[in-house]
């Protein structure tokens, strides 16, 4: 049974969520993985009103995410800068060592080196909006992400992305 979080727990989890966003923004993927627990599971999900079904667009465990990251240099990844704007909302404590949070998410896209860089380079636009549904586990005194489910409202993502929100 979950209970509302203390101010201290809220501050601790907010720090983890904010740090995870900054590390992804800066493509410091190795440090981002270090924020996750061994049982980490990452999913991107959305509801399609077109086919009236829940969809899972990405679903990996920690090893899968690590492999995804390590293979990025072999793919033609859009070089845009992404900026994750996070607002941590509900924070709940499940036990002394387990907690969860729901955060609203906006990701802004700033064009850089792919596309018509002469015309578009430096311009920003909204890429996606949605929510993080995060679960955390206390491990050696540090809160680690044990699960992240990204619920996207945005279903049109242009060319898409090799990166993840």
């Amino acid at each position: 049974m979950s209970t509302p979080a203390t101010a201290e727990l809220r501050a601790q989890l907010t720090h983890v969520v904010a740090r995870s966003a900054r590390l992804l923004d800066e493509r410091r993927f190795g440090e981002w993985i270090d924020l996750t627990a061994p049982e980490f599971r990452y999913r991107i999900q959305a509801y399609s009103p077109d086919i009236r079904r829940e969809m899972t667009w990405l679903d990996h465990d920690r090893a899968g995410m690590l492999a995804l990251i390590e293979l990025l240099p072999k793919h033609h990844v859009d070089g845009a800068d992404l900026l994750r704007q996070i607002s941590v909302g509900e924070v709940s404590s499940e036990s002394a060592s387990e907690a969860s949070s729901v955060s609203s998410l906006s990701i802004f896209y700033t064009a850089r080196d792919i596309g018509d860089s002469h015309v578009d380079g430096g311009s920003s636009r909204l890429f996606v909006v949605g929510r993080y549904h995060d679960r955390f586990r206390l491990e050696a005194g540090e809160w680690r992400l044990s699960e992240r489910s990204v619920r996207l409202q945005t279903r049109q993502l242009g060319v898409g992305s090799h990166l993840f929100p």
Partner: protein
Amino acid sequence: MTSQTSRQWRQSLGSPALPFVDSRIYTERDIFDDELHKIWRKSWLLVAHESELHEPLDFRTTTIAREPVALVRGEDNVVRAFLNVCPHRGTLLLREPAGNLRQASPSGSPKRITCMFHAWQFDAKGQCLSIPRRNAGYQERLQCSDVSLHQLPCEVGYGGFVWVHLDANPVPLREAMGEAFSALGPHLEAEPLEVFHHHKAIVHTNYKLWHETNSEFYHDYMHHFNRVTGMQQAGYHDRRYEAFPGGHATVSSMEVKYTAYEHEQVNLADERDLSFPLLERNGWKLLDLFPGITLNLRGSALRVDTATPLSEDRVLIEFRGLGLKRDSEAERERRVRDHNTIWGPFGRNLPEDLLGVTSQALGMRPGSEALHVLQGRREDSRVHDEVGLRHYYSEWSRRLGRSASDPYGEAAEARSGTAQELLARPLGAAE
């Protein structure tokens, strides 16, 4: 030749001249408008799968050649297509992408299509049922029987896909497809299918460039995933293209070696054992249908792309993923994962394909220097042969009554002019 002048840029390449298309077919508005009328309004188009409207009174909305279209499954279980437009004042009728008519709209009754504006109501067969205060307003001058929805030719076939044609009297779907489904059809029709994935993208490119990407395979040099799992594997270069009347073409199968992609070795290597009916394990067949539909069956999942051209430089592409209706939860999860690993919006292949075609559109813009876009690879109709592209443009040229390599007839006119000059020249005159 180290670089080319403007004149050389527009010359035919190779010796003898290789097949090409003029880049203006991708960039010019008048050609695009011509295509809408002569191709998109005159073709059977795959617009949905029956599993998207599997219950009586389910509906689905879409757009074809700027026409809003509604698909409705009647209480008699027949899927019908209508222009999604009220015959009264032209208002869009069904505004959601999908739903069920049992749910009454705010101004209407259950089981009816009700126009939100003036509450004219229609049944699932398109018949008008109610015009509010009809007697008071129209007296005997207008009856419900005088108006109905504009019904369009609609067929369900080839694995339960819903096909619509804007022309009132098209050739039957089976005739239009001919033998195009001969290779893929058995896999699609062995068991009922079901859609599990749908996403769409508005892509800044010409729709034909997208279809070309689905029709030529040697851009796999761009894809690390396809390169290592396909192109570098045995059997890849033996895959054969087969062209069919109407601009359609198919490519034969090979066994994809998924474990060659390093990521698969982490946690997927021993799990790629789910397939489609009658398809060999990890097989890969593809069918391109004129003018902008591709069915791509690889391993456990079927991907279906449908293009809706919006302008000469914008196209809406819908991506569907399908499995079997009888899938267990575990099987469905497997298919979803297999599909989205490469073809989802965060997959390994799809963003690369879309970056490729948007880059083409940036290189060929309206009013920019026209170039000859080569389609000259000939490899005995094997996978890197561009026979699929040449076949597509043969049909395109036939439909439009203009050559894809000379869309404005300039080369023909120049040849004609030369002939006229020769004829006008006095016999024996010096060159």
